[in-house]
């Protein structure tokens, strides 16, 4: 926590002082410490690069795909195994699996990133308000969280889809809804602790508004657990979104969503297992990358963990 306090703008240092330190010895800021600790974890760095590559590939997917993922049918190659022309093989309708998996990355990444972003923003605001003002605001927020947490995540998501109808947008909302309470609790706990710190008292004594204190002085202190939790949550969200599509409650065929592709592949599993293997691998590797990245970020951001 103490390192976090230093990173806030509250610690206004004399410019010349900083300069002399930089020239005399390597400046060790909290940020450079985090980068140094993160770089030491080769696996997490590799996972981070993989995630970056995936995001770039997903953005460029419409120009990268060798065949149209939905409207190209090769009727002479139904269920063909991987070949030079079709890297991941062909599915039971004659569509190129590589193109479909690549396009599917757009959907799964969008679902994972959007739902966690929505959940994190709403949850963080709720947690900040609850932790800072306490009183009825806290009771209300925590009661809502309790009720949302009383439903198993998947069930809540299915409930939302049952009410709003099955579509990918609704799946994102459904997954976001069950991310909110977890973020709210996390941020509330940190806010309660940071609120008691001397630097917050100092900021308040010079007349900063509640709004400024919350957003500029407490939020930065709680940002690292949010980032760590959020990264891990993206993996879970991708799995949940794919599960919903697998159950027929999210993206519908012929949309190249990974979960929906696996559901379509079930019928021909015996004669053409490769149709299922590639989308399954895509989900696995994507989620694995986010989880490894989250692990690495946690170890780098947690000042309590000091590795030899």
């Amino acid at each position, binding site marked *: 926590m103490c390192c976090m306090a230093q990173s806030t703008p509250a610690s206004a240092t004399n410019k010349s002082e900083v300069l002399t330190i930089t020239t005399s010895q390597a400046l060790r800021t909290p940020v450079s410490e985090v980068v140094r600790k993160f770089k030491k974890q080769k696996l997490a760095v590799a996972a981070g690069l993989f995630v970056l590559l995936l995001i770039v590939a997903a953005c460029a997917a419409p120009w990268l795909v060798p065949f149209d993922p939905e409207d190209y049918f090769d009727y002479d190659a139904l269920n063909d195994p991987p070949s030079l022309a079709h890297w991941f093989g062909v599915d039971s309708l004659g569509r190129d699996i590589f193109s479909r998996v690549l396009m599917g990355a757009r959907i799964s990444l969008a679902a994972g990133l959007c739902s966690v972003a929505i959940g994190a923003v709403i949850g963080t605001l709720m947690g900040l308000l609850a932790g800072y003002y306490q009183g009825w605001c806290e009771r209300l927020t925590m*009661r809502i969280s*309790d*009720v949302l947490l*009383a*439903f*198993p*995540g*998947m*069930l809540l998501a*299915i*409930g939302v*889809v*049952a*009410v709003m*109808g099955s579509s990918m947008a609704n799946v994102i909302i459904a997954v976001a809804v069950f991310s909110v309470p977890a973020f709210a609790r996390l941020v509330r706990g940190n806010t309660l602790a940071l609120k008691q710190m001397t630097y917050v008292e100092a900021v308040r004594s010079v007349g900063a508004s509640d709004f400024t204190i919350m957003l500029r002085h407490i939020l930065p202190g709680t940002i690292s657990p949010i980032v760590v939790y959020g990264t891990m949550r993206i*993996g879970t969200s991708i*799995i949940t979104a*794919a*599960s919903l599509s*697998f*159950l*027929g*409650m999210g993206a519908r065929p012929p949309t190249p969503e990974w*979960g929906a592709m*696996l*559901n379509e*592949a*079930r019928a021909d*599993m*015996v004669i053409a*297992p490769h149709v*299922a*293997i590639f*989308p*399954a691998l895509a*989900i*696995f590797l994507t*989620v*694995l990358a986010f*989880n*490894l990245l989250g*692990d690495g970020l946690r170890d780098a951001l947690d000042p309590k963990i000091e590795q030899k």
Partner: protein
Amino acid sequence: MIPTLMLVVLIVFLFVHILPGDPARLVAGTDADEATITLIREDLGLDLPLPKQFLRYVQELSHGNLGRSLRTKRPVTQEIAERFLATLWLTLSSMAWSVLFGMAIGISSAVWRNRWPDRLGMTLAVSGISFPAFALGMMLMQVFSVQLGWLPTVGAETWKHYILPSLTLGAAVAAVMARFTRASFVEVIQEDYVRTARAKGLSESLVVFKHTLRNALIPVVTMMGLQFGFLLGGSIVVETVFNWPGLGRLLVDAVNQRDYPVIQGLVLLFSTEFILINLLVDVLYGAINPSIRYK
């Protein structure tokens, strides 16, 4: 806990009212005339003011009446009762093996920290939380049922039917338990009292199982409670893959066919179970750690 449960009941009650469309029309079917719909609306009490309807709903609930399925016209309680045990056994068997294996992996990872058992265990664990259950189920079924022919594919008749679904359902939980046990264990094993135990010459197994495990178990038990919710949710997916005659598949069918009374009943049941399990976890705390006592 009771207020949370009441709020859950309220949300489940409101569920039908926030749905698009008229519930009475849904019950009556597409080709019913206005008179029939009005009759059904009165019969279901949908013409009453909302608070009155809620009271009526709670009254019915206290008599164990969850309404009738739109699809089969049978009482929802009967539909649930027929499938309850299949899901319960599946969940319990998954929980049992995953806690056992998860904790074993977690403990050995912590004891041999940064050595090969740790690396192997944690690689398995991070893969376990990254592999979606439905994909794992499909792969297991393909290998062990279709290609090797060792185990049955679908159904829930013998103990052999339980192996693949409970492996699939428990894999993620085992992985989470392993990671969590390791983290908790590593923290405790660095405590002074563990050093004291070693210093007075206790055997390593006594140090690990008596002095460390019990103290490391507290956060692990919390996690177990949370994972139960995950299992309840996961059973929905796994039951679809293995065509399991349980509650999860009933829910998926009900959602696909818009059978609202069944959805309502199942959501209520699942969340009540979840809340009860969390209560049980709180009670367990006291048993494991006598220093935690509730006022």
